[in-house]
Every structure is written in structure tokens, then in C-alpha cells.
């Protein structure tokens, strides 16, 4: 079975932290959607609508651009000094944040968790 990468909001990250050994999470790889609001060498911050910021640890080949909407696929981990964050495995540039209705994404995240059987293994 290919690996599943649940779509989440910043508030859900703690549930996918590797230290949460509840067995319910087969994966700690998640998908996040946000606007790049700061870039500092190998770290960055994305802002997820009105749901707060997430610190990212970038890969050498991650090419994030300020102000762009990005979908990030990564592992939930601790980021020095910034609490919980995401180590980026891959990112996808969706372009102008204005072209995305973030409310739909919030609803979608809600729906994917409510009707989990359609999206993710439930065990």
C-alpha cells in the first residue's frame, strides 16, 4: 500500500508527531497548505489561512518563493526554538494565494477526518 499523506491544518500537527505512540497513526507524513511568509536559508514559515503558522525545515532542492501558495508534503518533527514543525519532503507551488479559497480547504480537512474511510486507512 502506498503511503498515505493526510491533509491537515496546523492544529492537527501534534496528532502526527512521532512521539504520539498511539498506533492509530501509521504515518507522520502530512500535507499542509499555506502561503510562504518567511524564508531563512534552510528554514521557512508558511501561514495557513487563519489557522496559524508552521515552521518548515527545507531540503536543499526545495525552491519556495515568498508570497506563493505551496502545498507541502513532509514529516512532522520538532523545529529548534519553534516547537512543532514539518521537515519538507516535497513541495508544490500553487501560485497566487488569492486564487485559492482557503475556507474550502478547511472544510475539506474537516470532511477527510469525518469520513475517513474514503481517504485513509482507519485502523
Amino acid at each position, binding site marked *: 500500500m502506498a503511503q498515505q499523506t493526510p491533509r491537515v491544518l496546523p492544529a492537527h500537527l501534534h496528532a502526527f508527531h512521532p512521539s504520539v505512540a498511539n498506533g492509530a497513526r501509521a504515518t507522520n507524513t502530512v500535507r499542509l497548505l499555506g502561503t510562504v511568509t518567511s524564508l531563512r536559508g534552510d528554514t521557512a514559515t508558511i501561514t495557513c489561512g487563519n489557522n496559524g503558522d508552521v515552521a518548515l525545515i527545507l531540503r536543499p532542492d526545495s525552491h519556495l518563493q515568498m508570497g506563493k501558495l505551496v502545498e507541502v508534503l513532509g514529516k512532522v518533527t520538532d523545529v529548534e526554538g519553534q516547537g512543532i514543525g514539518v521537515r519538507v519532503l516535497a513541495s508544490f507551488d500553487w501560485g497566487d494565494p488569492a486564487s485559492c479559497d482557503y475556507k474550502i480547504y478547511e472544510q475539506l480537512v474537516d470532511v477527510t477526518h469525518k469520513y475517513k474511510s474514503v*481517504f485513509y486507512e482507519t485502523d
Partner: protein
Amino acid sequence: MDSNYGYGGSSGGGFMPGETNSPAGGKGDYNNATLRPITVKQALDSSQPYPEAAHQIDGADVASVCFVGQVRNISSQSTNVTYKIDDGTGEIEAKQWIDSSTADTMDMDDGKGNAAPGKDQVELNGYAKVFGKIKTFNNKRFVGAHSVRPLTDINELHYHLMEAVAVHLFFTRGPPGSAGGAGNAGGGAVGGADSTMGGTDDYGANRSLPAMSATARRVYNLLKTEPQSNEGLHAQLIAAKIGVPMPDVARAGDELLTAGVIFSTVDEQTWAILDY
């Protein structure tokens, strides 16, 4: 046929013989011209009651499907292009056969299929929307794709996944509008969206039915609206009127009988509404 869903369980025994005796294994494909939005996981989980049968999701036959995901691999062969599609719920291969006479977007001189972007071209790691049919080879699911096109609007991606849930709920809990009546939890967030989906005309009239399949609802509505004697209607007639195969009508009848909203009159196959 999926035991996860309560319906059909009681009629499973009667359903199989009917289907297998029917000479038309693939017939449903021609009668069923629906295009169902799904997630990759649903495609991988789809069941097949017997070889060559239509695949089923949520106990309903699926003809064509569409799904959205990131292209993880493109492999061009002389006769087909295979895309590996990942939508976060799983990974599946979509195989598009090249029709040499009409090859346009997938010209062979594009080489590896990742020719100049900007054209109507699917890119590696970009998002794509795939239309096709679920197939099985060596017990592995893949999709025979009719069309693979790039997807550039993120809202379309989100919309698609929501639509997949809406359709899933349609098949597992019945059409929208039915949820309120029998106290069946309709699912708050999507419930609202569902009612805007339209298509309630066929079934929406009765809000008192308990949760049941879409076919059962249609049978019930026909019984309710069709002029008839007090003997009710025969299952054959119902099947003809709503254009649904007999085994499905029989299954729907079982559901309605079990729920106690119809009763059989002159014989087992003639039903009337149980009014009280």
C-alpha cells in the same frame, strides 16, 4: 456486496445467481453511463463480485470514474502512456492507450511525455485529472484512462475530494434530504452542501424513509406515485419503469420490506405501500 454497508446483506444470496445467470456480464457498463468522482483509495478498495464484473464502490457498480492527484511517474511506451497518480490517499496507475490515428496531445515525438510545459501537457509531480474505468490485472487495480489532463486550479482539487465524499454518502446513506426525518445523522458539514447538489426531484419527496439505498428510495417513490390497484405493483413492472435491473429491484424490495414500509400482496414480488 460489501459487508461494511448494511444493505443487501439479506439478499446477497439471491443476488448472485441472478447476476451470474444473466448472459450479459458487461451489460451494465452500457446501461450505466455514470461518471463517479472518487479518491485513489476508493479505487484500490473497490470490489469485484466475480471476474469480468463491474467494480463496486460502496456496493454500487461503477462505470467510469474520475480522480485527481499528483503525477509521480510517467512512462511512455509505444502503445500506451502509464501515469502513476498519488492523491494522498494512495497510488494507482493510469494507463492511456495511444490511438495512433488521433494522437495529438501525446504525440510520440514528445519523447518521454514531459514535453514543453504550458502546452496542454501533464507534468511530472504536477496535478492531473484522470477520467477512465477501473480495471484489474493480476489482482492489482489500475485505471484505463480515457483522458488525462493537467489540473491547475487548487479549488478544483478540493472540490473534487468533497464531491467524492458527497457521492460516497449518497450511496451509503441515501440521497440528500432524507437525513433529517428518521434521525439518521446526515453529517453536518456536507449535509448542507448536499442539498445544493440538486437531483432531489427523483427521490426527495419522502422525508420519512429510514436510511437506505438510492434504488430502494426510487422504488418506494414509484410505488407512492404510480397509479395502481390495491394489489400494488409487480417487481418486473417496477424494474421496467425505473430502468433498473431486476436483481437490484429485488434487493431494494428486500430493504423496503425489512424496513416495514411496503408489504407483499398477491405474491412475493408484488408490493404495495404500507400506509398507516
